[in-house]
């Protein structure tokens, strides 16, 4: 067994060697520095991009799940009548009670109603019934006035929210709060103006008139009790989307008494395909970057092997002396291996430092959308791990060469 002192001295000696041959060591480790710096920077950029895009997805509903009634494919209509497949208010309540991964959920129902203001009368306007949580789920705040609250819902108060397009179509004043409109012949108080979101990515156009009323009010306004509703839910985080989908599926199947391989009579969908696409793209970029890094680490490793061979040859007499005073072949092997690893790790250290610098530079680039770029800890640890492996793999041959030197020959070496 080699003593702790041996390891301490071997590492101290390795550092001293690197310091004594500063220029040589720097040139030798250049391959490793470049490799590690570039992979660190690429990972930082990808992390930045991912954070950015996920944040964007979140704001538009990447962590949203939609639940629709759905007749199973090719199933005869008489086996699955509408009463059996339509969503019910009890079901959304069951989901609220049992689903652990959602932040909020609302039933949504659309009714075609006539709308009438002092100056305008419109027929067949879509009025949407929602729970107060809809604001959280859709990420749509009210610009003026107030959003719906629990009291509106439980007391089925005849209040409504509308958007700018609805205001102009109904020729209401710019600040319509406190005005009344007639929806389906009933009088509704306007309590707020809802923000309009335009997103090409997720196809909600901001140009059509939208009017919202409490869900309980909308339910009463339906002509019959088997009206259509869908659910819209917000998952706690985008990664949980799959879990949420299976939780909701479980809850609904149970409430509908579906057993065995009976098909679902509903559909649960999440907007996660974009995330999946982006993740695939990021994985592709990472693989390409990994390949480049692999090549530069290979080049760096060959550099290290080369310099270690030079070092063994330069220090042949020293090796001979160490053997004469009792260094075993394995002690010599370990010493040169530690030197190669130290050199490689030193290169990795400088590389990570440069990578951090690049990442910082990237995050400060205007218009690059990379302000969230940062080097994750796992990338730093992985870099050091790879450097250690390179040191071991490429330091092994010179170290074996040193360990096998004949002490007599070595001491005679000029």
């Amino acid at each position, binding site marked *: *067994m080699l*003593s*702790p*002192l*041996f390891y301490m*001295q071997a590492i101290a000696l390795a550092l*001293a060697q690197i310091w*004594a041959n500063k220029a040589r060591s720097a040139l030798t480790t250049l391959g490793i520095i470049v490799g590690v710096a570039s992979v660190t920077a690429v990972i930082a950029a990808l992390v930045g991009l991912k954070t950015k895009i996920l944040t964007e997805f979140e704001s538009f509903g990447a962590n949203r799940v939609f639940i629709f009634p759905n007749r199973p494919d090719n199933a005869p209509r008489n086996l699955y009548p509408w009463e059996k497949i339509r969503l019910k208010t009890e079901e959304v309540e069951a989901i609220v009670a049992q689903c652990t991964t959602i932040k909020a959920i609302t039933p949504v129902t659309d009714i075609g109603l006539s709308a009438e203001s002092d100056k305008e009368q419109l027929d067949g306007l879509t009025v949407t019934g929602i729970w107060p949580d809809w604001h959280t789920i859709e990420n749509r705040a009210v610009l003026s006035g107030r959003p719906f609250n629990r009291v509106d819902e439980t007391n089925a108060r005849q209040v409504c929210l509308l958007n700018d397009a609805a205001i102009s179509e109904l020729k209401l004043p710019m600040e319509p709060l406190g005005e009344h409109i007639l929806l389906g012949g009933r009088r509704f108080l306007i309590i707020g103006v809802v923000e309009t979101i335009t997103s090409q990515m997720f196809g909600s156009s901001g140009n059509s008139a939208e009017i919202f009323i409490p869900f309980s009010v909308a339910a009463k306004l339906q002509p019959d009790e088997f009206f259509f509703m869908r659910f819209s839910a917000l998952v706690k985080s985008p990664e949980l989307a799959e879990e949420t989908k299976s939780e909701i599926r479980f809850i609904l199947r149970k409430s509908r008494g579906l057993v065995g391989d009976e098909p679902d009579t509903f559909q649960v969908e999440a907007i996660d395909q974009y995330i999946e696409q982006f993740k695939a793209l990021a994985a592709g970029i990472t693989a390409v970057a990994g390949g480049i890094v692999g090549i530069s680490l290979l080049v760096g490793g060959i550099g290290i092997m080369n310099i270690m061979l030079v070092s063994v040859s330069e220090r042949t*007499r*020293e090796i*001979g*002396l*160490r*053997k*004469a*005073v*009792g*260094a*075993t*072949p*394995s*002690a010599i092997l370990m010493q040169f291996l530690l030197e190669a690893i130290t050199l490689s790790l030193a290169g990795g250290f400088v590389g990570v430092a440069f990578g951090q610098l690049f990442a910082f530079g990237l995050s400060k680039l205007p218009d690059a959308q990379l302000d969230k770029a940062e080097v994750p800890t796992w990338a730093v640890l992985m870099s050091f791990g790879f450097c250690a492996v390179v040191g071991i793999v490429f330091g092994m041959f010179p170290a074996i060469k040193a360990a096998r030197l004949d*002490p*007599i020959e070595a*001491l005679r070496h000029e």
Partner: protein
Amino acid sequence: MLIELRDITKVYRVGVETIHALRGVSLTIERNEMVAIMGSSGSGKSTLMNVLGCLDRPTAGHYKLTGKEVSRMGATELAHIRNEQIGFVFQSFELLSRQTALQNVELPLVYARGAGWRWGARRRRALEALDRVGLANRVTHRPNQLSGGQKQRVAIARAILNRPAILMADEPTGNLDSQTTLDILALFRQLHGDGQTIVIVTHEDEVAAHCQRVVRLRDGSIQSDLPIVSDTAGRFCEVVEARFRKPAARVEGAA
């Protein structure tokens, strides 16, 4: 018996040529002897030293060191034997240039078996060894700040650090001027006086004259193995030279 060589042969192969460096050498050295091994180049004295110092294994024959057969040991075992039983002193000192005198002296302890964490003890031992060679005031000097004689003293301190059974010196004064040579030889004699067994390989009669016994090699065999009786440096030379000049008279002189 400290060292017992029986019928040691060493054969090298250089290309197609076979070189018989040692042809059946038998030699015993007792504890606390001070022996000179002499011979011209090609006589096999270096090979003998390498075998004695466990740097090399004989092709045939037996070598018992402190009662242990070492002639068939593997590289790792031999390294441990060198670390624990043998101290080397070389002609060109072989100090590590970037290390201080103390670090150079400590070197064998780095490779010592079962050394553990006892740093204080090893530092004390290294300082003790430096003190014994008279360099207690040069502890933190590096080799380039030391004179030739001082360098060799550091090397001797390193060699005696592990209290070896044998101190092997290979032309220890070859790179030193005559005054320094005398100082170093005096140091060897002082160590010998303290009970150290010393084997010096040299081609200089003045050096051999400081020993108790001279083993002379020629063409891979022991040509003569004689004790020296007198005690004064000047007279040794004459005695040794006279003996070598007249081989026949040598045996009588020895008796």
